[in-house]
């Protein structure tokens, strides 16, 4: 029972980190209806900015965190303006955006390889990882609990932003129909920038936690594949879906690793993806955008 509870907490913690990434990804999808494969890049940028801030600039974790979040947010906006906007304005074929996002993902990852080298870097131990006893039944690390709490805080913040602010309302309207939102007076260009900023910011939070968990290296963004899977399971375009899908994924991964074999862990992830796509491609909460004939 102890192991089970332990793995559940591990799973929820991992899932909550995935959720931060998946939600940002789904947010972009809900507005622009394309999969931003470069999302992993924002994560990596967040990780490296934090590392840089902690080591070179000697900031404390709070300031480094803020620095990295804002930096990643701006990087996301820059990516959109440089790579996606020109394509979006010329054509409605989302395939081109997809390919461009794939390219950006590779560019960002390899920019770091070239600039700072591909070796693994450990972040200074600013997030405690000491073991914590949970209700006397299981031990988990403080890190897992902190990442879980942080994720909840940020997702909660996102929820408040979306439901209680003007721009949040605009984003929700745009998720229904971007063009109509524009016709209703929403500044579409700015809305897209805000959405990307938020997505980048959330990805950075995930990036920081993942860097601590797995050490920092340029290909860390590859882990976003799992967040994509989570978003698809939950339903592309649905934010609650992204969260639910992430938790399901985190739990499945950890339970598989704990009880079956850690080799099978990734296989389970992709099997869940394939099963979801084959049985219910719109995922748990996704919207089915049917085509008018």
């Amino acid at each position: 029972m102890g192991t089970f509870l332990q793995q559940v907490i591990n799973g929820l913690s991992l899932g909550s980190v995935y959720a931060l990434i998946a939600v940002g990804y789904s947010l972009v999808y809900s507005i622009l209806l394309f999969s931003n494969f470069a999302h992993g890049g924002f994560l990596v940028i967040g990780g490296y900015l934090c590392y840089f801030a902690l080591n070179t600039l000697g900031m404390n974790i709070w300031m480094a965190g803020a620095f990295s979040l804002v930096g990643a947010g701006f990087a996301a906006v820059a990516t959109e303006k440089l790579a996606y906007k020109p394509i979006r304005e010329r054509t409605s074929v989302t395939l081109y955006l997809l390919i461009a996002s794939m390219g950006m993902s590779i560019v960002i990852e390899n920019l770091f390889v070239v600039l700072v080298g591909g070796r693994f870097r450990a972040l200074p131990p600013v997030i405690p990882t000491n073991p914590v006893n949970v209700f006397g039944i299981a031990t988990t690390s403080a890190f897992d609990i902190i990442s879980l709490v942080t994720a909840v805080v940020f997702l909660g913040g996102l929820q408040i932003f979306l439901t209680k602010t003007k721009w949040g309302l605009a984003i929700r309207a745009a998720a229904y129909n971007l063009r109509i939102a524009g016709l209703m007076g929403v500044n579409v260009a700015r809305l897209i920038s805000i959405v990307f900023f938020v997505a980048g910011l959330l990805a950075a939070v995930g990036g920081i936690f993942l860097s601590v968990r797995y050490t920092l290296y340029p290909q860390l963004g590859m882990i976003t594949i799992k967040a994509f899977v989570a978003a698809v399971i939950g339903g592309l375009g649905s934010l609650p879906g992204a969260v639910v899908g992430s938790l399901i994924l985190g739990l499945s991964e950890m339970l598989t690793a704990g009880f079956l074999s850690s080799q099978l862990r990734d296989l389970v992830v992709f099997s869940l993806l394939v099963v979801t796509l084959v049985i219910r491609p719109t995922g748990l909460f996704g919207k089915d955008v049917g085509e008018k004939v």
Partner: protein
Amino acid sequence: MSAYTEGILILLMINGIAAMGVSLLTGFTGIFTLGHAAYLAIGSYTTAILTLDYGMHWLPAIIAGGILAMILGYLIGIPTLKLFGDYYAIASIGLAESIRLIIENWQSVTNGARGIPGIDTFTTFPVALGFFLVLAFFAFNLINGRVGRAFMACRDDHIAASLLGFHTARHRAFSLALSAFYCGIAGGLYAGFISFIQPIMFDMLKSTEMTAVVVFGGLGSMSGCLLGTTIITLVTELFRPISQYRMLIYGLVLVLVMVLRPEGIMGQNEFNMKLFRKIASRIGKPKTTSERG
């Protein structure tokens, strides 16, 4: 011809075969794949295992590799091809990763992550040339006729295609099977060229590279994908001393092509008299409104 030049040419032809496979699926049938390295892997491993463990001659071994890849492609295609656009791309990533993970973990058959060394170097220049010429002959012929038109109808408007009596699901699955065959053959030839294969050679980066080459050359142009392959393979060779920049350049190529010229170098044109006439007439007189849209 020096051994080095011969090696480059062989590599060009192997990559060219794979590119034609991806072109059939992505360029001509409009199914954007980010997971075709899986079929390369299946071809490679099948050929390696058959020649090393079962003493089979390389010719039937390579063909077996192609056929196994084709069968798997078809089986995978049946449930997943009802997906379109982003969804299929994500599924292709998941499937490719799953296949790679299976290969990596199936120690008894594939020797796991360590890979299979000591494969006989049967892919000599004449062998590669033979396969290349035959497969190119088939590919160019197919696109110029009812098979090509059926694929393109499914690509340009699958609803209209079904309303013209095309069983689009079957055509798409067939396109996938064919492209998997080509990549399987390329994989088999590859095994006999580099003599040592490991699962990590067939990762997402490889898949992306396979698709990037076709995008760069022109989605919808068979000669374009060969041109793209040639340019990128040669540039990669040139940049070998600074291979860390190689991936960065791939990424930039993808992004720049999408932003500046999404139809790629060749667009939907082929290297034939029609193209030269077109270029000649465009140089000769100013652009009229009756140009191809």
